[in-house]
Every structure is written in structure tokens, then in C-alpha cells.
């Protein structure tokens, strides 16, 4: 059923990470479509382009050329059409400061890129199902915060 497809959008400049990401999601068998872009600018263009499906979650790497994850996050939260999107930060950084700052700026999810593929799979599963719950169970999106 097309309606039940979960769309996720990933912005990461690292090819390997994009690979891990989409592999992990696909292995979850959650009827998920992964769209990937290579930097922040491309991401914003993708989001604004008509006809593109509205993603359930947007994954942002913090360190990207041209436009970083935080800039994208701020831009998304400022844009009236986009601010309802769930935003996940997908980063190498495990610093408490980065995590909190992202949440404060409006990110819903923070994923520290794990160094184990299985851990990544688990994390993705949790993120997607949790986001699904929030989107479908009438939960308060504003207090949706998840740190994996």
C-alpha cells in the first residue's frame, strides 16, 4: 500500500555512511523508501521541490559541505511548510553539548553514528517505529525527543 510507505530523507556527504544507512533501513523491512542527498543545500532544494514526497523523518549529518546540519535544522524549523517535519541528527559527535544544542534548536531525534552495523540497525528500527508512533498515535510532537 503506497500510503503506508515510510519516506526518509538522508543528508550525508559520506558515501559509506549513506551506504550503511540505507542498508540498515532496508534490512529492517519496514516498507521504507530512503532518499539520500549529499549536502545541506541539496537537501533544502529536495524538500522545496514540488512533487517530492513529504518525508516522515529527515536525517541530517552535522558536518556537511556547503550547508551543515544545524543550519538545515534552523532553516527547516523556520519554514512554515517544513517545521512539522521530524528531524533527526545523524552525527559522529557524542558530545553532550552537540546533542543538547540540536534538541534545543528543534531536532526530535539524535543518533550518534554507531561503530557497529547491528547497533545501527537497532537504532534505525527504534527511530522509525517511534516516529511512526508519534505520527500516528496523536502524540505531542513538540515533546518528541529521542536520543539513540
Amino acid at each position, binding site marked *: 500500500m503506497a500510503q503506508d510507505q515510510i519516506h526518509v530523507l538522508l543528508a550525508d556527504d559520506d558515501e559509506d555512511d549513506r551506504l550503511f544507512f540505507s542498508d540498515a533501513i532496508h534490512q529492517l523491512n519496514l516498507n521504507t523508501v530512503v532518499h539520500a542527498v549529499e549536502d545541506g543545500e541539496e537537501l533544502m532544494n529536495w524538500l522545496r521541490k514540488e512533487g517530492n514526497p513529504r518525508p516522515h523523518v529527515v536525517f541530517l549529518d552535522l558536518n556537511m559541505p556547503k550547508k551543515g546540519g544545524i543550519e538545515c535544522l534552523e532553516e527547516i524549523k523556520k519554514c512554515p511548510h517544513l517545521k512539522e517535519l521530524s528531524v533527526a541528527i545523524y552525527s559522529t559527535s557524542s558530545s553532550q553539548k552537540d546533542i543538547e544544542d540540536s534538541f534545543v534548536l528543534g531536532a526530535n531525534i539524535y543518533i550518534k553514528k554507531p561503530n557497529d552495523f547491528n547497533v545501527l540497525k537497532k537504532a534505525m528500527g527504534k527511530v522509525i*517505529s517511534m516516529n511512526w508512533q508519534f505520527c500516528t498515535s496523536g502524540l*505531542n510532537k513538540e515533546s518528541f525527543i529521542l536520543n539513540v
Partner: protein
Amino acid sequence: MLDYSSLSMVINFKYDIHKACIKIISDHLEEMELSHSFNGLGEIKINKSISEEEFESLRNKLIPYGISIINSQKESLVQKIKDVIVEMIYLEEKLPISKTSTYLAEKLNLSYGYLSNLFSEETFSTIENFIILQKIERAKELLISGDYNLTEIAYKLNYSSVAHLSNQFKKTTGLTPSSFQRIISRRKANKQLEQP
């Protein structure tokens, strides 16, 4: 006199999702001149049969509010489970002591095993997870309201200890309740900074 039109302000409010939904649905049904009654648990009885067109138009009208008309029997049952759980967590002053499984089975008059299987099939999640999620959501809400401390919240939501609640909170959200609180208050401060 201050020119209030040049000032913007922030209003904080509480809301009852259920009442709001019922009001929205009720308004739309009345607009379509359909007499109806609410059966609870997300069921509405419409006193006459309606055409396919009317049905579609109602479904479309309700989409912007995040309200969808459930078609399948299974979906409706899942929704009912969810509603019972939500009702249990949100409406009761204190959670019932009895096991939620028994509570659910009694409320819906179906075996818990069946409900559990159905729920997992339909939602990529389990009833237990859903309950935990809802309880933590409730805990978040109570935390944000600022009217309760962690001990009171733990008691209200039937946790054996604050540590238990903290642990579950951490497991579910990846954050401790205190860092959650800090993030929320910083967000509020941020918004207030942006407002003027």
C-alpha cells in the same frame, strides 16, 4: 497607552485532545447534516447510511486535523486498544494497579494474546512498548507542566521508584528526565528570544 498591536505574545495552554477531536468531528457531521452519537473508543454511530461521496468528503475534511477514518476491522481494533491505553493513562488520576493486560482484555472483551498479536502486526511495535511510550509521554507532559516533581510523577504513573521511571525515561528517549527538562526550558527561552 501601549500599542499592543505592535507586540506579540506567547500564550501557553493545555488541551484535551479527545474533546477537541470530538468537537471537530461533531462540527463537521453537523455541517453535513448528519445526526450522530459517540460510542466512545473512537466509534461514531451515524443515524442513517451515507453515500460513498459523502463518506469521502468527510474523510478528506478530517485529514487536515490528523483524524482518519479507519476502514479495516483490524485497524479499528488497534485504534481501540490505543484509545483504551491512552484513556487509562491520561484520564485516570492514578493508574490502575491491576495489570494492563487484564485491564485491556476486560475493557475490550478480547483475549490479551489476540490483542497483542494484532497490535504488533499492525504497528511494528508491541502493546507493552506502546504503553511505555504513552507513560513516558505522560511523564513528559507532567514534567513540562512543572506542577509535579519526579517522585510525584513516578507515583502517579505507578512506577516502583524514581529510578525506575528515570531508567525507563532514559531508555525510551535516550535522555534523563532532568536533561529533558533542561532542553525544553532552553527551547522556551529560545522562542522567547526569537519572538520580539
